[in-house]
C-alpha cells in the first residue's frame, strides 16, 4: 500500500458516500446498543428501503452524549436526535434532508458539543468502526505511511517527544521519553503492548475508543512498533468488553488484508503484527508488570520495578506499554505535526484528554477537552451541572488511586500537576460527580473495599493494610469509632502508601487522604455526634444493633 493507493481508497469511499444521499447514522457503541439501537437501525433500514428519498443507514461509534441514547445523526447537516425509538424511524427517514424533527432534536449548540475539541474522538460517531475504508477516508493510516516512508524511527520518537504527549493510563509519564528508552535498548526482539484493561470504576474512555475507532489504536501501535524497533504487538483487553474485542478482531483482519499490518508493511522493510489478549477481570492486571505476567499466561501479580518493562518486559524483552488513549493520540500527531499538538493544552500537559463524565451530573457521557480547562467548565458547562436542584459536593477523579475534589477548587485547570496538588490524580479519565446525598466517609470506605478486594495479596502492606483500613472506615461509618481510630487510620495511610509493592497499594490511601483533607468535619461528625449528614451511613443506634 502506497500513499497514492491509500488516497485512491479514500477518494473512492468519499465519492460513494457523497453519491449515496443523506446518511442516517445510528450509534452502535455499547451504551446505545444496550438500549437496543441495533433494533432501531433495522427499523431505519426498513424505512429507508421503502422510501423514495435516497438515504443510507449506517452504524457508527459513540456520539458522546450517552445518557440521551439511543442517538441518531443525519448528515450532511449535523442534525442529532436523542432517545430515539424504532417507532420514530419513518419520521426520521422522511425528514432526512428536510426540516429536522423538532420533538427528537438534540441541539448541537449546547456547551456539551461546542466546548469540546476532538482529536482522539475525531472519528467517533462519524464512521463505521467495522469498515477500514471509512477510517482511511478520514485520513487514517496517512500518519503511519508518512512515518514509515519519510521518517527514521528516531525522528518519530523525536516527534512524539516534541508533541509533549504524556501517558493517558494514569501516571502521565512522557510518552516520547518512554519510546526513546525502548528504542535505545539493544535487542532483536521487542514488544509493544496496548493496555486496554481499563479497570477504574467510572471509566469508559478506552472502551468507547476501541468500539468507535479501533483502527486508530492499531495505527498508533504500528507507528510505535516502527519507532522502537518492535515487530510484535499485544492488545490486552478486559473480558468485560466483548464488543470492543469483536471490533478489534475485525479491524486487525481488515488491516492485514490491506497490508497495513503484517510482513513488509507498505512495501517497506518493516513488519509488525498484533495479537489480542483477553484479560481475566482482575483490576491489578492493569498495572504494567502484572499485565505482562498475564500475557505470559500466569497469575497477574506485579513485581518490583526496576527493571522497568522498557528494559525487561514480556519474556524479559524490552517492552513498550502504553494506554489505549495514548496510542490513539499518536496518528494525529504524526499526521499533523508535533507543533500543532503542543499548541493545545497547558505548558506541562499538552493536547486533549478524554473524560468519562458520570454520576450526579446532567449530561453523562464521553467528552474530549483541551488540557487546562477548569473542572467547573467541564462539570457545569459541558456537564450541565448537578440535576434535581441538588448541591455539588465533590468530583472524584483517578478512580481508586485518586481523590475527591471539593467546590472551592473547581476553578483549577485540569492537568497532571494541578490535580496532584489537590490530592487527586488525572488517572485514566473517569470523572464521577457527587452531590450532597453522598457521604464522603462512605465513599472513602467504598474505594477501600475495592482496593482490599482487588489486592493481589503478594505484598503484606497492601494485603493486610487495606483490610485494616477498611475495618476502621467501617467503624467510623457505623459510628463505632474513636479519635484514636482516626489517628491509626492516618498512620496506616502513610505506611501502606510508602511500603506497598505496586501502584495499587501505594495509591490506595489517596481516597481516604483526600476526603480527610477536605471533609474532615464529616469524619468527626461520624465519630463525635454519630451522625451522617448525607443520611447514607447508619450511625449510632442502628449500627449498634447491627454490631
Amino acid at each position, binding site marked *: 500500500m502506497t500513499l497514492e493507493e491509500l488516497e485512491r481508497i479514500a477518494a473512492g469511499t468519499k465519492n460513494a458516500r457523497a453519491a449515496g444521499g443523506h446518511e442516517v447514522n445510528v450509534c452502535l457503541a455499547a*451504551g446505545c446498543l444496550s438500549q437496543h439501537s441495533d433494533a432501531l437501525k433495522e427499523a431505519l433500514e426498513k424505512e429507508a428501503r421503502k422510501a423514495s428519498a435516497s438515504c443510507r443507514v449506517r452504524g457508527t461509534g459513540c456520539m458522546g452524549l450517552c*445518557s440521551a441514547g439511543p442517538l441518531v445523526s443525519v448528515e450532511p447537516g449535523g442534525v442529532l436526535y436523542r432517545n430515539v425509538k424504532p417507532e420514530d424511524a419513518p419520521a426520521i427517514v422522511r425528514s432526512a434532508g428536510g426540516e429536522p424533527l423538532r420533538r427528537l432534536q438534540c441541539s448541537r449548540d449546547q456547551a456539551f458539543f461546542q466546548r469540546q475539541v476532538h482529536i482522539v474522538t475525531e472519528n467517533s460517531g462519524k464512521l463505521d468502526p467495522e469498515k477500514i475504508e471509512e477510517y482511511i477516508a478520514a485520513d487514517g493510516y496517512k500518519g503511519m505511511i508518512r512515518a514509515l516512508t519519510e521518517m527514521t524511527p528516531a525522528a518519530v520518537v523525536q516527534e512524539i517527544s516534541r508533541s509533549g504527549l504524556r501517558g493517558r493510563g494514569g501516571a502521565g509519564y512522557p510518552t516520547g521519553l518512554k519510546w526513546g528508552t525502548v528504542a535505545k535498548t539493544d535487542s532483536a526482539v521487542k514488544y509493544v503492548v496496548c493496555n486496554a484493561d481499563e479497570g*477504574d470504576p*467510572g471509566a469508559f474512555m478506552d472502551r468507547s475508543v476501541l468500539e468507535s475507532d479501533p483502527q486508530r489504536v492499531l495505527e498508533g501501535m504500528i507507528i510505535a512498533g516502527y519507532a522502537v524497533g518492535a515487530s510484535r504487538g499485544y492488545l490486552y483487553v478486559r473480558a468485560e*468488553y466483548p464488543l470492543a474485542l469483536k471490533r478489534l478482531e475485525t479491524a486487525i483482519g481488515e488491516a492485514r488484508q490491506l497490508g497495513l499490518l503484517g510482513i513488509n508493511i507498505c512495501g517497506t522493510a518493516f513488519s509488525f503484527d498484533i495479537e489480542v489478549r483477553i484479560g*481475566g477481570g482482575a483490576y491489578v492486571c492493569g498495572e504494567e508488570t502484572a499485565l505482562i505476567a498475564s500475557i505470559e499466561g500466569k497469575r497477574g501479580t506485579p513485581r518490583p520495578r526496576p527493571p522497568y518493562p522498557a528494559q525487561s518486559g514480556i519474556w524479559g524483552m524490552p517492552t513498550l506499554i502504553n494506554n489505549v488513549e495514548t496510542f490513539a493520540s499518536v496518528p494525529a500527531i504524526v499526521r499533523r505535526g508535533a507543533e500543532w499538538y503542543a499548541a493545545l493544552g497547558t505548558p506541562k500537559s499538552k493536547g486533549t484528554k478524554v473524560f468519562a463524565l*458520570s454520576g450526579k451530573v446532567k449530561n453523562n457521557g464521553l467528552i474530549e477537552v483541551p488540557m487546562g480547562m477548569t473542572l467547573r467548565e467541564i462539570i457545569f458547562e459541558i456537564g450541565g451541572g448537578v440535576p434535581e436542584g441538588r448541591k455539588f459536593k465533590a468530583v472524584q477523579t483517578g478512580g481508586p488511586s485518586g481523590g475527591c475534589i471539593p467546590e472551592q477548587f473547581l476553578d483549577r485547570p485540569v492537568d497532571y500537576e494541578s490535580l496532584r496538588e489537590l490530592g487527586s490524580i488525572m488517572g485514566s479519565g473517569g470523572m464521577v460527580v457527587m452531590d450532597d446525598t453522598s457521604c464522603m466517609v462512605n465513599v472513602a470506605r467504598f474505594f477501600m473495599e475495592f482496593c482490599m478486594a482487588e489486592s493481589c495479596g503478594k505484598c503484606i502492606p497492601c494485603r493486610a493494610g487495606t483490610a485494616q483500613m477498611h475495618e476502621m472506615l467501617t467503624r467510623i461509618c457505623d459510628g463505632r469509632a474513636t479519635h484514636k481510630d482516626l489517628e491509626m487510620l492516618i498512620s496506616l495511610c502513610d505506611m501502606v502508601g510508602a511500603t506497598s509493592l505496586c501502584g495499587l497499594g501505594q495509591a490506595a490511601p489517596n481516597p481516604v487522604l483526600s476526603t480527610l483533607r477536605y471533609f474532615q468535619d464529616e469524619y468527626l461528625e461520624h465519630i463525635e455526634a454519630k451522625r451522617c449528614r448525607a443520611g447514607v451511613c447508619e450511625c449510632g443506634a442502628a449500627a449498634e444493633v447491627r454490631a
Partner: protein
Amino acid sequence: MSVHAAQPPLPSDDKRWRIVNGTMRRHGHARQALIETLHTVQELFGYLDEEALKFVAASLRVPLSQAYGVATFYHFFSLKPPAQHECHVCMGTACYIKGAAQLLARAEEVLGVKPGETTPNGTASLLAERCMGSCSLAPVTIFDGEVAREASAKQVQERLERWLAHDA
C-alpha cells in the same frame, strides 16, 4: 516446543473439546496459552470443572496447581456451573453514587443469597460487578445479558421474582 509431543486424550467425544484443542494448537501448545485456553473452555462450557483444568494443564504441560492458581486468580473464570439466570448488579463508582447498594440489597433479599452465590435450586446467581463501562446509564443491572438502565429496586425485585416463580 513440538506440537507432536504426546497429547492427552480428549476427556470425551463432546465436540467442544476439539475447539479447545484448536485454541491450544493455534498457540503451538505453548504454556502462555493457558489463559486463552481457559477462556475458550469457559465460553464453551460456561465454567471450568476439574476435568477441564486437568486436561488443559496436561496438554500445555503446566502443573495442575498453576492452572488452578490462574483459574482462581481471575474473577472472570468460574469453577461452578452457571445458574439458569444471572443477575449482575454494578457496584462501580457511578452506579454506587446513584444507589446501586440499594439494588444489591433488594436482590439479596429476594434471592436469599449473597453476591457470588447461587440460589440452592440453581435458579439464579447474584453477582456484584466492578464497573460495566456503561456508567452513563447508572445504576446498571444486567439480567441474563440484557442491560437495564437506571433500574429501581422495585424493578429488580419484580424481575427476580419472575425468575423464581417460573422455576417453582
